[in-house]
């Protein structure tokens, strides 16, 4: 099984790499775009034929084990962690996040909630976890990210329906929109610089119009996603960290209110969109 998975994956990477090396020699842009898209499409097709060839599923398995393993200074598992549907209830929970949690008196996305459970239930030190929360290129997603990937996967087929009745949930979405449109930094960028119009690209990378429900529904449910270019699973917190990096802003703090608000805004736009995590990204 693993060998087969590995072989399919190697074929896909080779296909993508081929597009990369031949890029400068290609005369027509359209041709080049089609090649890259074809390679990804080819990969997607292989995944359909054999869903187990998605390397992100290794982290799903890893996450499931980590969830159930007694860990941390208190040596307990996460099985008593309440993701919004009651302690230990995982199935479908991701579709209803971010949400307000009374015990923490704040709105939390999946990763922030996991951080909270790791701190409160298992006794991990929050500062240690958020110091280097994301993997470098080629490194596997960190433990928290693997658990998040498993939980998102357990909601596959469900549609986003994050609750919005609580005033703090409403506020999070509004704050997220303000931050999405907020320009600062030496390049004067906001999220809207790159994600506020359909059909735009930066260099050759397509930019989804995330303020539009139609496009948000297509992509937000794909995260955490396996990224072929960095060969690891990237979570939504990591995705935003990376976009702020491009914006020439400092390092976005994992689980910060701003990060949760942006995710609340994106999920609100994606309301009704299907969850298909971990998807494959370029």
């Amino acid at each position, binding site marked *: 099984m693993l060998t087969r998975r590995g072989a399919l994956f190697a074929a896909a990477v080779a296909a993508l790499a081929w597009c990369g090396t031949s890029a400068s020699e290609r005369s027509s842009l359209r041709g080049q775009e089609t090649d890259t898209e074809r390679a990804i499409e080819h990969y997607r097709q292989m995944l359909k034929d054999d869903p187990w060839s998605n390397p992100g599923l290794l982290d799903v398995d890893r996450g499931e084990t980590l969830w159930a393993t007694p860990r941390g200074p208190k040596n307990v598992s996460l099985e008593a962690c309440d993701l919004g549907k009651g302690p230990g209830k995982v199935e479908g929970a991701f579709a209803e996040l971010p949400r307000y949690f009374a015990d923490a008196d704040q709105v939390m996305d999946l990763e922030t909630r996991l951080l909270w459970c790791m701190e409160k239930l298992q006794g991990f030190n929050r500062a240690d976890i958020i110091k280097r929360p994301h993997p470098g290129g080629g490194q596997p997603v960190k433990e928290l990210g693997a658990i998040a990937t498993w939980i998102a996967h357990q909601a596959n087929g469900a549609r986003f329906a994050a609750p919005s009745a609580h005033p703090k949930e409403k506020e999070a979405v509004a704050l997220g*929109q303000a931050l999405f449109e907020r320009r600062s930094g030496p390049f*004067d960028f906001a999220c809207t610089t790159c994600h506020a119009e359909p059909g735009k690209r930066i260099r050759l990378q397509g930019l989804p119009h995330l303020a539009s429900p139609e496009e948000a529904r297509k992509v937000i449910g794909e995260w955490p996603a396996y990224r072929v270019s960095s060969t690891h699973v990237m979570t939504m917190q990591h995705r935003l960290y990376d976009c702020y990096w491009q914006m020439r802003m*400092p390092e976005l*703090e994992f689980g910060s209110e701003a990060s949760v608000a942006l995710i609340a805004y994106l999920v609100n736009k994606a309301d009704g969109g299907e969850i298909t995590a971990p998807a494959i990204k370029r």
Partner: protein
Amino acid sequence: MKPILVAVGLSALFATSTLSADRLTVDPARAEAAIKAAFRAAPPDWQSRLIPDDTLSECSGTDNSPSAAQFEAIRKREAAKVAYPDDGKLLGDWKKGERLAQSGYGMRFTDYPPRNPNGGNCYACHQLTRHEVSYGTIGPSLLGYGKARGTTPEAVKEVYEKIYNPHATFACSLMPRFGTNKVLTVEQTKDLVALLMDPASPVNE
């Protein structure tokens, strides 16, 4: 100056509808506090990156569709922030300009200490030459820019100002203020002006 008129017209048309229909409101102080907290580990010399100036606040607050009056006020304010070379020469070396247009290096938190000069990353958003097919579409195509406009001193000055501070002509432009924000030096800006305007540049092939 046509794009400006269009922009004013469009923003006047759409400003009210975007504002009322689609925008949720939150106390601006809440947003500022959230940003401060989200980047609290940033070193002291990065703090200025967290704070938008008046122009950015007005642009963000209207989703980059300022009213006609705001548009004019921003334009004026930003025009005053353009600095020119002492000798008045605005055309540099287009070959250096092409390298700057290709380079996206600089000012990301992984770019310190700097290993290269900052780039302009123009290709991220613009088509510039036929030989570079990897270009973005956030900005308009600049292919044949100098050829189309001619190299009159006025046209050259306009390009210099556009790169130095795009809001000076187009308030709430999505393009970075490369000169005013000290991303590019005056010398680098001149090289980019040459890339766009020099008849020998591949932009004008």
